[in-house]
Every structure is written in structure tokens, then in C-alpha cells.
């Protein structure tokens, strides 16, 4: 299995928030979603995912509730709160800016 690329620091939260902005999801769903959207390039480790979800929950960005899955089992679903949505917008902005700046620097060093 080829090694998945390293995530930029801080992007994990952003990816999770973005994923949850699509609608409530359980942990496994979040991981699968990111995995799929990145064309199987990114695999979120369970060891990072669950602590991150707990952290965001405590910070109030994410709320969780137990819901019945389509297959009829009880599962923990996470959804974005209003604070989480604001945080998402903020982080998205910061991320875009930092990518743009990094890219500019990289271009500059190549020319």
C-alpha cells in the first residue's frame, strides 16, 4: 500500500468540519468520505479521527447524538453546530490564504 501523503498541520480539523457540513455522519462515515473524496489518496487514521472529534465536541464545534442507521443499528452521529460552521468558514479562509502564500513562495523560488 503506497503511503498516504502527510496532512498539513491543522488540516484534519478542516477536513472533518467540511465533511460534516454536508450533513450528520458517524465517525466511520467521515473517514470513508474523506478517503473517497481524495480519490483514495488520504486515509484518516482512526487514532487521529476520534480524538479530533472529541476535541471538537468539547470546543462546541460539533455535537453528537445517537441515531438509528439505515441498517437499523444504533450509531453515534456527528453534526456541525453554528459555532462549527463559523469555525469552518474561518479555517477555510486561513487555509486558502496559506496555500496561496505557500504557492507564491514556491513559484518565486523556482523562477
Amino acid at each position: 500500500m503506497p503511503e498516504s501523503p502527510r496532512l498539513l498541520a491543522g488540516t484534519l480539523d478542516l477536513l472533518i468540519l467540511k465533511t460534516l457540513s454536508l450533513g450528520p455522519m458517524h465517525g466511520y462515515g467521515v473517514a470513508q468520505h474523506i478517503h473517497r473524496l481524495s480519490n483514495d489518496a488520504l486515509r484518516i487514521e482512526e487514532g487521529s479521527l476520534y480524538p479530533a472529534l472529541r476535541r471538537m465536541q468539547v470546543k462546541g464545534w460539533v455535537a453528537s447524538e445517537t441515531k438509528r442507521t439505515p441498517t437499523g443499528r444504533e450509531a453515534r452521529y456527528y453534526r456541525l453546530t453554528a459555532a462549527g460552521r463559523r469555525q469552518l468558514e474561518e479555517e477555510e479562509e486561513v487555509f486558502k490564504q496559506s496555500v496561496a502564500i505557500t504557492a507564491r513562495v514556491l513559484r518565486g523560488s523556482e523562477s
Partner: protein
Amino acid sequence: MTPRELAGRIAAWWRRNELARELDDELEDHVRLLARDLEHDGMSPAEALAAARRQVGNVTRLREESRDAWGIPALETVIQDLRYAFRGLRRSPAFTATVIITLALGIGANTTMFAVIDRLMFRPFPLLRAPAEVHRVYLQTTYRGSRNANPVFPFLRYTDLLDATHTIAAVAAHTEWRFAVGDGDASTPRKVVGVTPSFFEFFDTPAALGRYFFATEDAAPAGVPVAVVSHRFWSTELQGANVIGQRLKVGVVDYTIVGVAPRDFVGVTDGAPPDVFVPLSTIPANLGAWSQESFRRDYSWDWVQMIVRRKPGVSAEAVSDELTRAYIQSRAAARALNPRVLPDSLVQPVAVAGPVKLAAGPDAGAESRVLLWVTGVAGIVLLIACANVANLMFARMIRRRREITVRLALGVGRRRLVAQFLTEALLLAMLGGGAGVTVAQWGGAAIRSMLLPEGTPFNLATDWRTLGVSFACAATAALLTALGPAFAAARTDLAATLKAGAREGTVQRTRTREVLVIAQGALSVVLLVGAGLFVRSFIHARSVPLGYDARPVIEVVADFRGYAMDSAKAVVVRRTLLADVQSIPGVVAAARVNSRLFGTNTAQLRVEGIDSVETLGRFNFQIATQDYFRVMQTRVLRGRAFTDADRDGQPLVAVVSDAMARALWPGRDPLGQCMHIGLGATPSAATAACTTVIGVAENTAQQNLTDDPRFMYYLPVDQVVPHQLSTMYVRMSQPDARGELERVRRAVTRAMPGDGFAVVRPLQEVVDNQSQSWRLGATLFVTFGGLALVVAIVGLYGVVSYSVTQRMHELGVRVALGARSRDVVRLVVVQGVRPVFLAVGIGLVIAWAVAPRVQSLLFRQSAVDAALYAGVGVTMLVAALLASAIPAARAVRADPSVALRSD
């Protein structure tokens, strides 16, 4: 952390068990879903489940990390670690007890010493406003190389110093006395402080009842007799009644109470708190007509102390400079009255705005410096205790290495491991600290009674400054003892340790422990050298031939308390009193005396044939009644002592000390020689009549214990001041007078006319005070040095004993190969004693480098005394030998069959 997050964490912490269960469920779900998807990709159900589990990985670790998100992880971890530590300590009670006792001794020593020096030197007086701005004024002169800083000076000097106003915001004077307070039988001697009305403005709190003094109540000529009583005196002696306007007899003067001082108010008085405050100008009324007339117009009498408050932004040096200028002017004024005031060029007069605490000021005696040294020593004791505890912790860590390894393998973070070690150490240190404070409160009583003035309040339970220091000591101890073992534990090489047996990988750590033993040993040696130096100084001081025997003697000061007498009546009253005292059962002899021991006086002295007697040294005189030599057991070597016949009008006579006779009339017979003494009615020696030497007494140490020549002469009371002298020395038939004090005090008080009463103390106390600093140094150094030695030796024993346990196998093999008991013993003992050799070497070098700095505190003792150093070294080595001998005896029993079978 935002408040919202904190709230979230706290909420989560409450539900932590539920949350943990939920997480487990969730992870289980995750595994299940993952397995299902893998199955879709074509794996068998079993394979898929295994692969899913592998992918999710270390669930414990994951749980730990998620848990960090809820609760206050630090707090929760601490609570968990504390619980873990408690369990661990309960499992090894011997280790726990040893550590707690060791730390308790170290922390107890520091708590005691801090409590003492803080009270003596640093702690601000209660209720004093902005204490950092307040100074006591010391007047310092340096005459013939000896510096003398005096916080007590004449009233007139104080008023001269008031000229310094540029740097000083406020100023007050005060003076401390002991007067009888109350009426008749109820009267007892109490501390009475005379103050200027400005004195109370240095403090924050208004009077608890009534008021303080008005400026007019301290005005010339004699003030107004009003009094403020202390809160304690008011509540215990006056039953907390409304006493404003009541009469209170202080000494011979009737005062009117105008106020009650606030609780805890002591002014700037150390030791026993004062009971009564009165206006400064009213004090002389209790001291006789002479002082009342003279205190505002001459410089003859030192009795006033002065405190000042700096103006904002002014340095203490600037205050000292300005006061010095005023002081020099004041000396000029004094010289105009009395030409004998020495020129400034000879004495370099300086005024110092110094610490309010006398013990921290320039006037502080050798005791203060000894105390600071001993406080350093207490610090060293704590270091030694820490080294020892670190040692024990290393040993414990090594014993627990397998457990630690397993925990590391199971995913416990190394940081967490270090935190657990620290928690355990902190817990131990706090227990040790608590025990230490108890040690200081109960066990330190002996040390305290020696160091603090009688009556100083002392309760550690409410003493936050001292408790803070004890806590800081404990915390430092925890860090010092835990860091090494903790990091060593965290560095544990998992694979190697899991593979290795118990016998391997210990050599390195034993070396660390050996280094600790060497450090302890070296520090102990330093302390033992200090102990030796002070003990020998003390012994030397005690073996100085005194020329008298003070132990059975009681000093009785008769206070006639204003009983009206003209001088003819005074002669009769004092003679009668002495006769009454001599008839008290148990009294062998009694004498009235002028000078107290170590408080000698001099007078002008002229001897024909000698240009200036003063150049030979200081000649002290004593005025006494005929039985003086019998009371003091001072032998009269030649001629005779004076008798009842040597009265006023008879030829003037004197007894001189042997040293004085040899100095004044070398090679001649001193008996019958003539001295002219400027004393009493003829203050000038030039015109004084001839006093004939009738006897030579043995030399006595009355001025000090040093090698100064003991020039002393004795004059009969009746020929000099027949109507004076209220101090009596009373010799009892008991060899130790201390048990007779109260009986004699009562008997003398009964014998006195009017309201008069007697104050007594054992004369030996006065003698002992002279060697107090060496006694202090000796006692404290021996206590702490002994502690250090014991702790260090126990530490050494631990290391050797542990190493024997570790090497039992090897020793068994040696025995199997033919090693004899002697060889085994030598092996073990050499291992134990070798580091101590090094420790002794290092310790002696340190002592040799440091000891000269205490030279000035020693008495007839070189700080670098080779014999003493050798003695300490040998003591240490013998102790080490004994500490190694016990494990060695065990090593001899190493069984070769066990060793061989185990492989």
C-alpha cells in the same frame, strides 16, 4: 482555553465513564463497518475482522488520547497519578517511612531555622505600614579599628537628628524599660515602652479603644502621665473592661489610661510584647530626679531609639548621608558641653538608616552571624536528605524496572511515566513536609528557646511565611529526588530490558547512586568539621579561668519603687536590707555590688611614676561590700580583703587584681602602694586623695572572656557611695542557685520597705551569655552534623546492601571457585568504603576552603585545625566501615550451590 471549552471539559469530565463507554461502542462500530467493507472487497469474514482490528490499532492508546479531550486532562491525570502513587506507597511501607522520616528531618531543620531567623531578622513588625520604607537609626563609630553601631543614644542627640528633614517623611523615638505595673502585691515587672506621639503614625491601625497620645502630652518639661495599654494586657489583666480614664500605676508614677492598642501591636519591640506605652518624656520621672533634670540638656545618657520613614523615591543611603551630617553637627554641640568628646577624625562617626530588626542591623552580635551560617547548614542537611531519598528512589525504580517496561510496552506515554514519578515524589515530599513542620513545632522547641527571646509568640500552624517555606522546601525536595530516577525510568530500553534478566543493566545506576553517596558523605564531612570547630570553641570558652564561681550565686536587684529616702536613711535602709538578706535560710553570704559581670566600669586613675595609666589598658573597678570575695569565691592572694572597719572617714583602701599589681608595680610589693582614683566626690584623679592597696586578688574575667589583661580593682562601698547600690550578689549553700530563685525573690521582697520589690536571676546566666554564640554554633552544628552523618551512613548502607543483593549470584560463584570469607568481606567492604574515601577527601577540601570564613566566630580555635580535620575524616571512615560490615556479613553467607543451580 475559552470559558466555553472549559465548561465543555468540565461537563464531559462529569460524564467521563459514560463517554468512555460510548467511545468503546463507537470504535466497535467502526471496526464492524470496516470489516464489512473489507468483506465486500473479497476477504473472508475472519480475515476482514482481523484486518480491521489491525487498522484501528492500539485501542487503549486511542482511548487515552480521546480522553485528553474531556475533563481537565491535567487535573484528571494528577488525580489518577495520586491514586496510583498512594497505592504504590502503601505497598512498600518501609520505603515510604524511610523517605518521609528523612525528608521530615531535613524539612524540619529548615522550618525551624527559617521560623527563627525570620522572627529575628526579616519578618516586619505587625501592623507597621509599608515596612520597607522604615528604618531604625544606628550611630556608628570606629575607634582603634573596632566598630560599634549603637541603636540607643541620648534624647538630645535624637532631637539634633530631627534636623535631617529633606529625606525623611516621618520620625519617632521610643525607649524600652521594665517597671513595676499595678498596685501593692498585684504589681509585677512589665515591659513599658516610652514613645513620641508620632510613633503610632508608623502603624496602620487606630486604637482598639480610646486614642493614642496628643503632641502636648509629650511636651517639655515632663509630659503628661497618660498611658496606652496593650491589647493583651487589657484583656488579661484588666478583664477587657472600659478602662479609659482609669488610673494605672507604672513604677512610681500614676498614669491615666487613655487608650488600648490594637490586637498584635508590639511597636518595634522584639521578644516579649510590651504591656504599656507611655509618652517618652514621662519615662525619666521613674528614673529619679537626676535623669529628669538632665535628659533635655546633656548627652550623658543613652536611652532613646529612633525610627524614620523615608520620603518616597529616596534611597536608604541618602537618608544615612543626611543623618550623618546631622550626627556630626550633634557631636560638635556635645563637644561644646564636654571637651572630652573624641574628635570625629578619630572615630569616623556615621549614622546608618538600617533594618528595624535589631538582629539584622549593624549592631547584631555574633549570634546573628552564627544563625545565618546554621541556616545554611540546615539547607545542606536538606540536600543530604534529598540525595538519600533520590538514592532510595533509584533503588525503587530499578526494582520496578520490569513493571515500568511492561507499562511502556502497553502504551503508557513516557511523559506520563515521568509525571507519575514526580507525583509520587511530590506526595512523599508533602507527607515529609507535614511531618517536618510537626518536628519543627514540637521537636524544635529546645532550639527555639535557645535562639528566641523569651515570650516570642510561636505557632507554626498560623505562620504562613514559615509554612510557605516548608512547602517550598518540600516541592524542591520532590523535584531534586524524582527527576533523576524519573528520566532514567523513561529512558528504559524496552527491548533490552524485556529480554534481559534481573542481573544485567544495573552497573550504571549503581554508579549514579555511588555519586549520590559521595555527595552526601562530603557534605556531612563539612558539617562535622563545622560542628568540631564550634564545639571546641565552646569548650575553650568554658574552660577560661574565671576567678569566681557564679553557679550558686543569685543576682538580686532591689527596686525601692520611689520609697522616699534621704541619703542618711538610704545608708541605713540598704544596710538593713543586706543584713536581712544574709539571714535568709540557705544564704551563705551576700554583698552589694556596683558593676554587674561583663558590664564593668572605669574611672580616671593616676599612679605616681606612670605617665598615663590608660596606655597600659583598661582598668575596671568594682565597688562592693566586705563579703564580696566570699560571695564570688575569688581568692585574695596577698594582704586582706576589706572589712566593716573600712568606712567613710577611715583611710581609703583598695584590693587590686594580680595582673593589675604586676602591670603597675612590676617587681615591687603592691601592698601599701598608692592610687589616685577620680570617682564619686572627686571626679578628677589629679586632685583625688591616695587610696592604699591592702590586698591582691586573683585575676577575674569580668570584662570579657578574651585575652585582654584582667586589670581589676575593688573598692569598699562605704568609702565611695555608701547610700547607693541596689544590686546584690547572694551566694546560696546549694551548688546550683536556680532552684532557689523564687524563694529568695519572695524573701527579699518581703524584707523591702514600702512597695519595693526584688528582681532575681541566676548569675550563671550572665556568664553563660558570654559563650552563647559558641554554644549556639556547637549545639546546632552538632545536631545538624549528626543528622547529616546518620542520613549519609544509612544511604551508604542502602547502596552496599543493595549491591550485595544484586551480586549474591556472582559472590556465590566466587565462593564456588574458592574465595574465602575474608575475600568476600574485603570485596564488599572495599566497595562500600572506597566512595567514602573520596567523600572525605572532597569534604575536607571544601571545609578547608570555607572554614576560614567563620574564623571570626570561633574562640581560640583555628578554622583549619589539622587534628580536627583528621578526626572528622576517621569518624566518617569508621562509620562507613560499620555501614558496610553488615551487608558484608550477609555476603559471606552467599551459597555457591544456589548460584550454580540457578544457571
